[in-house]
């Protein structure tokens, strides 16, 4: 729809009240689709992006209801997150892992008998020490890369493209797994409390619905997802701290909580070995997945971004470390053990501390289920952001770089949801098999990022660079050791799959990069080149099957472009062709007509051949083929019109020396 109002301001001279007075009225009419911006620019209003068709308007309206009003780029700052909203968004992944990390270690230790549970606390202390180290390392990264210091950026900037892409691929795999595993865990926890879900096999559909829900909320924008998901995460945090606090107080007062009796999980017995301890350590390390989320998302914070991100990172790690140690300590105090009846360690501790299944116990359990599902939120915050950075660098399809109507990276959000759903459906919801793959990617990216930071400090050599380099260096070494531990301990359990997926993704991204780079070279305009005046030396050809207005319109256009316009008519009926020719010679002047007789009733191919011959014979002259095309208003019209035009365009597009241009013909009202 054309804007009926003019948008260019006009200056109207007027005479003043007194003789000799002169003034100018600047008429700046407000248009429906545009308004005036700064420095004489014209800014499109929301109305300018509204579709014209009824179906398009319906879709647009539905999106408004579902996702909210369209946000302007200028509103980006208002979408930034304060610390209290950023904490649940970026930490729901790490926080949720407290619910299962200790238990995961205990399941492994169970193989060596209950005496091995004594190792849980030392392992937990080791993991928290590692967490502190990684936190300090990332604090430095955030300061050094205030525009987003994800592993990819740091590794690429300091170690090169390949290490950067390895870090990126590892993280992308991890984000997808996080969504699939965490939402599935949450739903299966819920299914334990609500048996009807299991009875009617509703888990997988419910997992899919949950992923779609988280996707929808994220498409509304980061700020809204933060507002919506903050409450469940804070309730979980409160419940965890309360259960640990009450447990500590009760123990200090000599009334230590005791877990209710349960049937221990029948683990396959094996002797205590270094490999077993390494596996338990690796399982516990799953608590650290998502630690890098804050560093990746620095630009999402309110200014000063780096300071707020650093503070959020420290708060997140402090809470994670306290809860993780607290849970491991309560395991020892209460005597909770992995259960054969499905009663989780957290459930046993809750029942022990609250003396049974009280309302506080249920708040703890339901908030745990909620936070497990919301752990996907961290991935939904970071995956699209990382994908957008990769797209801007030319290693991902470009659409991932664009922000949607709500300033969210919509393509990345939708892609993450789709891949996760495919994964969940393919595994029938049984994603526990994916857990061994979980953390190896994250620790690979930790190692690459920290190594990159060492190089960064070494090159920059600013004040205190030695201390910073040592912190990141130790971080790199320790996380590298963890990667090796993972590889050894989890290789046979499925970690080998990562060794296939990550290289495949890296090769894919390199190929995309090569493609974009070659396109860039092809499209590069040399700075010294000057575009000359209009030339009419090109050859214009108009395929013409009949004396019709659409073809005549194309011929008229051709005559404005070139002195040499040729109409080409392909026929199997010489008599009709003669009539056509007579009419053409009568009505069309100055345009040559070539009639190609095709007795085999094939019209498009001879035309293509003719165009190829003309283009190949004189490659220095550009052949412009003007194809009349009827404007389609309804979907069913596609089957009735333009079939030859589509075929011709498909055959000729990209042919050297030939430019194909559609000449749309609007049906007269």
């Amino acid at each position, binding site marked *: 729809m054309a804007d009926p109002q003019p948008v260019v301001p006009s200056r109207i001279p007027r005479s003043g009240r007194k003789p000799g007075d002169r003034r100018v009225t600047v008429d700046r009419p407000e248009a429906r689709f545009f308004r005036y911006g700064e420095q004489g620019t014209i800014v499109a209003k929301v109305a300018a992006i509204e579709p014209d068709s009824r179906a398009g308007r319906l879709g647009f309206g539905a999106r408004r209801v579902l996702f909210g009003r369209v946000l302007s780029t200028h509103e980006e700052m208002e979408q930034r997150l304060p610390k209290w909203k950023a904490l649940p968004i970026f930490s729901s992944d790490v926080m949720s892992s407290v619910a299962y990390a200790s238990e995961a270690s205990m399941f492994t230790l169970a193989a060596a008998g209950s005496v091995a549970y004594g190792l849980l606390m030392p392992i937990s202390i080791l993991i928290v020490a590692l967490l502190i180290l990684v936190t300090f390392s990332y604090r430095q990264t955030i300061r050094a890369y205030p525009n987003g210091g994800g592993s990819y950026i740091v590794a690429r900037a300091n170690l090169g493209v390949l290490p950067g892409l390895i870090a990126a691929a590892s993280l992308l795999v991890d984000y997808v797994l996080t969504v699939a595993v965490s939402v599935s865990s949450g739903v299966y926890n819920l299914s334990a409390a609500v048996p009807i879900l299991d009875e009617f096999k509703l888990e997988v559909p419910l997992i899919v619905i949950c992923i779609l829900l988280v996707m929808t909320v994220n498409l509304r924008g980061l700020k809204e997802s933060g507002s919506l998901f903050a409450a469940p995460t804070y309730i979980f945090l409160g419940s965890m701290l309360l259960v640990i606090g009450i447990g500590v107080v009760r123990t200090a007062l000599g009334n230590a909580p005791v877990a209710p009796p349960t049937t221990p999980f029948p683990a396959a017995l094996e002797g205590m070995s270094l490999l077993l301890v390494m596996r338990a350590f690796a399982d516990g390390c799953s608590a650290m997945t998502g630690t890098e989320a804050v560093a990746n998302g620095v630009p999402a914070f309110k200014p000063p971004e780096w300071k707020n991100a650093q503070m959020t990172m420290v708060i997140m790690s402090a809470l994670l470390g306290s809860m993780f140690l607290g849970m491991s300590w309560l395991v020892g105090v209460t005597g909770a053990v992995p259960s054969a009846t499905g009663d989780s360690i957290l459930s046993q501790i809750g029942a022990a501390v609250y003396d049974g299944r009280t309302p506080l116990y249920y708040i703890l359990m339901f908030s745990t289920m909620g936070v497990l599902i919301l752990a996907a939120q961290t991935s939904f915050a970071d995956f699209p952001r990382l994908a957008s950075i990769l797209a801007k660098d030319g290693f991902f399809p470009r659409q991932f770089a664009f922000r949607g109507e709500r300033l969210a990276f919509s393509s990345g959000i939708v892609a993450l949801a789709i891949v996760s759903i495919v994964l969940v459906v393919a595994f029938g919801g049984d994603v526990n098999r994916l857990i061994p793959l979980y953390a190896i990617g994250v620790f690979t990216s930790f190692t690459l990022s920290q190594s990159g930071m060492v190089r960064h400090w070494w090159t920059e050599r600013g004040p205190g660079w030695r201390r910073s380099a040592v912190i990141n260096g130790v971080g790199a070494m320790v996380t590298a050791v963890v990667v090796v531990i993972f590889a050894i301990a989890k290789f046979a359990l499925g970690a080998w799959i990562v060794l296939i997926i990550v290289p495949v993704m890296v090769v894919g991204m390199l190929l995309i990069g090569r493609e974009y780079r070659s396109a860039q070279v092809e499209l590069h305009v040399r700075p010294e080149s000057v575009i000359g005046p209009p030339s009419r030396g090109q050859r214009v050809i108009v395929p013409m099957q009949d004396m019709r207005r659409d073809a005549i319109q194309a011929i008229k256009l051709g005559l404005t472009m070139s002195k040499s316009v040729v109409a080409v008519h392909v026929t199997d009926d010489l008599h009709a062709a003669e009539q056509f020719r007579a009419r053409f010679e009568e009505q069309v002047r100055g345009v040559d007509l*070539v009639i190609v007789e095709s007795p085999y009733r094939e019209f498009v191919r001879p035309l293509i051949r003719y165009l190829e*011959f003309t283009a190949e014979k004189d490659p220095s002259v550009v052949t412009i083929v003007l194809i009349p095309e009827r404007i389609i208003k309804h979907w069913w019209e596609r089957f009735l019109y333009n079939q030859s035009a589509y075929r011709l365009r498909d055959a000729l597009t990209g042919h050297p020396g030939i430019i194909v241009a559609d000449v749309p013909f609007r049906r007269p009202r």
Partner: protein
Amino acid sequence: MDSLTETAVRDEIDRELRLIDDAIALIRAGAAVRVTVANLRLGSSVLEAARARAGLHRLRVTADWTPGDEVCALVVEAGPRDG
């Protein structure tokens, strides 16, 4: 035609001969059996040259032209060269 300068006439003849060449190439490739190049302003002037070019490929060119017409058409098709 009266308004055409000498250079313009030469350019027009070249252009019309190029169209004949395209028609010859099309028939030689087997993509068509007969090609009519119509609405030629200097068709009568290019006829002999067109015949010579077509003859090299054992094709013939016939003129479809009535005296008094402003334009003429040349038909290129397979067959012995016209006398």
